[in-house]
């Protein structure tokens, strides 16, 4: 654990600050990539900018500064443009087109890098990143940090200035186009920024982990909220949090950027499981609740029908699935049913009222189906069994009004009054 091992503020917090700023910038842009289904184009960009970096280094002789920025943005545009051209003009499927363009540009970049043997970048460095190298000297740290902060500021400025335009172009690009906004322009600006941010992150976290930092926090936020602004804030938070967690939880001498990606993945897993509305647990709970309600209502309706036909309840309804047993227990606890002896369940007055509403919904629905869909009588019961749980008092009255308050259902049984 690094937590106490290397607590030299100059390096520790410096390093962390760079990572947080970079991750936040990535996460913000990533939201738009995820929403516009451009995640893989984002991946392609992080590879496609490599020739730009190599050329930038070749011409300026420096690993940082405007040279590689310019090169990256130019090649970022080129990646986006070529991908689109190959898929639109040559009729290649979009994912194939992405695959061809980024591998080709990346190869060009690798070959260009071999022309720069004395510069200390190689493919390995590009892939893995080397956050630790940043702190080797204060001077280089400052340089990296300033660049990082500038690209974050550029990202924030872009989102704030084009907030409305980005929103409409992402949600409904046909409308944006019809209104005279240029969704294509938005697309290329976004791609330019992604290139910029990934090149600033290259030297620190590496090209693949940039992909994780672009997409994972955004995906996480997407599962947690239904508002765009909230999603951006959450994504930024998840990005920053994965930086912090990754930094402190990494095994000694472990690869910090990789750990950040792992932590982002862990946070995503939590979101997948526990997100309030879209999470797996929430969905399971909702389904179980619904199943329980249906089981309870089925028991009530069943008892009501037996009462109607003067049959005693002999078979214990709780012998079935666990959900039936649970339903029975809950009905008894809420005082809707009682048992004089074991297994002989009866409705209480309270339970009878509840059951009456259900039976009314069931039989009204049967009557409605018969009138409007012309179904044979033996095809009415099953759909009504499903629908009775969802027809509340308001809808019951509407049905009754439309059917002129029928006294009986198609099988001749009485429809209870509401």
């Amino acid at each position, binding site marked *: 654990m690094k937590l106490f091992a290397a607590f030299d503020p100059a390096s520790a917090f410096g390093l962390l600050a760079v990572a947080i700023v970079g991750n936040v910038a990535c996460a913000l842009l990533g939201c738009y990539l995820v929403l516009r289904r451009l995640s893989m184009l984002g991946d392609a960009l992080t590879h496609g900018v490599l020739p730009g970096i190599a050329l930038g280094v070749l011409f300026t002789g420096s690993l940082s500064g405007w040279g590689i920025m310019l090169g990256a943005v130019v090649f970022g545009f080129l990646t986006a443009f070529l991908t689109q051209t190959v898929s639109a003009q040559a009729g290649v499927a979009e994912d194939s087109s992405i695959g061809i363009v980024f591998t080709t540009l990346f190869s060009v970049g690798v070959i260009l890098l071999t022309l720069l043997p004395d510069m200390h970048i190689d493919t390995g460095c590009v892939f893995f990143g080397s956050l630790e190298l940043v702190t080797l000297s204060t001077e280089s740290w400052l340089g990296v940090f300033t660049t990082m902060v500038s690209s974050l500021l550029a990202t924030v400025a872009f989102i704030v200035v084009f907030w409305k335009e980005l929103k409409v172009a992402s949600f409904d690009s046909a409308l944006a186009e019809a209104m005279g906004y240029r969704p294509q322009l938005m697309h290329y600006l976004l791609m330019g920024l992604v290139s910029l941010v990934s090149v600033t992150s290259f030297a620190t976290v590496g090209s693949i982990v940039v992909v994780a930092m672009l997409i994972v926090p955004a995906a996480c936020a997407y599962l947690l909220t239904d508002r765009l602004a909230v999603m951006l804030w959450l994504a930024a938070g998840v990005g920053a949090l994965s930086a912090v967690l990754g930094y402190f939880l990494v095994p000694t001498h472990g690869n910090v950027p990789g750990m950040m990606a*792992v932590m982002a993945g862990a946070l995503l897993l939590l979101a997948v499981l526990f997100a309030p509305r879209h999470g797996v647990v929430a969905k399971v709970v909702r389904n179980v609740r619904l199943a329980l309600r249906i089981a309870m209502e089925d028991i009530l309706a069943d008892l009501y029908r037996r009462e109607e036909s003067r049959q005693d309840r002999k078979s214990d309804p709780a012998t079935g699935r666990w959900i039936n047993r649970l339903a029975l227990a809950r009905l008894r606890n809420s005082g809707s049913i009682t048992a004089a002896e074991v297994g002989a369940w009866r409705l209480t007055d309270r339970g009878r009222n509840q059951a009456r509403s259900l039976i009314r919904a069931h039989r009204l629905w049967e009557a409605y189906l018969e009138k409007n869909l012309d179904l044979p009588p033996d095809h009415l019961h099953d759909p009504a069994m499903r629908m009775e749980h969802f027809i509340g008092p308001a809808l019951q009255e509407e049905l009754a009004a439309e059917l002129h308050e029928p006294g009986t259902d198609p099988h001749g049984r009485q429809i209870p009054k509401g």
Partner: protein
Amino acid sequence: MMNFLDTLGIPYNTRIVLTGACLLGASAGVIGAFAVLRRRALTGDALAHASLPGVCVAFLVVGDRNFVSLLIGAFLAGLVGIGVIAVLSRWTRLKEDASIGIVLGTFFGCGTVLLSIIQRLKGGSPAGLDGFILGKAASMNFADVRLISLLALGTLLLMTALYKEFKLTTFDPGFARAQGWPDFLLDLTLLIAIALTVVIGLPAVGVVMMAALLIIPAVTARFWTERLGILLLLAAVVGMGMGAAGTLLSDRPFSLPTGPAIVLVGAACFAISACAAPRRGMLARYLAQRRFSSEMEQRLLRLILFKLSQRSSTIDAEEARIDGNWSVPHFRWLLRQAQKEGTLHHDGKDIRLTAQGEQETARADRDNRLWEAFLLAHPDLARGYAACFATQSPEDALPPEVLKSLVERRPSSSREAAT
């Protein structure tokens, strides 16, 4: 083969690499063709990235650089990655592209952490494991080539055995399922084949280049044929060519890195095909589009000239221009074309049709009316003939009995009839 290459003065090491690269290219080309056709082009990429933690775990567990155990680790991790992609895109509101990106990034991140741990445990070097990401084709040895040959053989066998089944599920999975074919199992077989190809190819060409080796041959081959069988064959040839040419380029005097060289050869093949392929290429498409537009314009010009010529024998050029909404230079160009074909005389202000021109414009008007009559009489057939409307005469395009019934109805002039 070996002897032949020997006589060309190619040293043993290069021959090994050459054979390996060719066979790998051919297998990846064939398997990749199905991946591309099933819209899974980037699955190979995700798989390649996702296999890294598997390699590392295998290394940590087995404790040495046993090649087979590393491959098994890579294979299993890759499959887990694919499984996670499927789960994320099916069970959550995340779309497939985001799911691929998530797996690619986090699995790879996890791999780098494990790699750094191994580096610390074994001291200094990453024990050659980073070769799995970057690819070290030049260090391919006989055992590697033997494995790749097995892969190629397996691919060949798989394709011979299940060609029909793969063809069906790729083209129409719903139909295949309805016919009782185990769609899921076939899909899984294909996925496993992709995974095997990727993990066997990884040490040779690396993560990024592996994706290229899967995608480029198939997409390149697609430009030249409409038949699946030929597509597979062509993809194998392109893959093999990529391997061969790339390896030779990585040797002296060029000395390029092998993986990128292979990709660039493929990219060149792709670019040439995308531009120059006879029907699907961009040049062919562009020319066809140009021809279409100019045919459409000539047709419109003839219709307008016919309409105006019914009023007087000399046609006011400006009136025709405005009717067609053409710019002055463009209209002049159109008239020059028509003049060259001998349909009209044009003195700057007035247009006079030649005898040939009168015939042609009358024919254009007749065709137009016949098409219109056809559409009104057989609206349900309209879409099937849409491709012929603008550029063909109904007399060539329609079955004779349909045509006869239309002529008998004597359609009135199209433009008036519609309003």
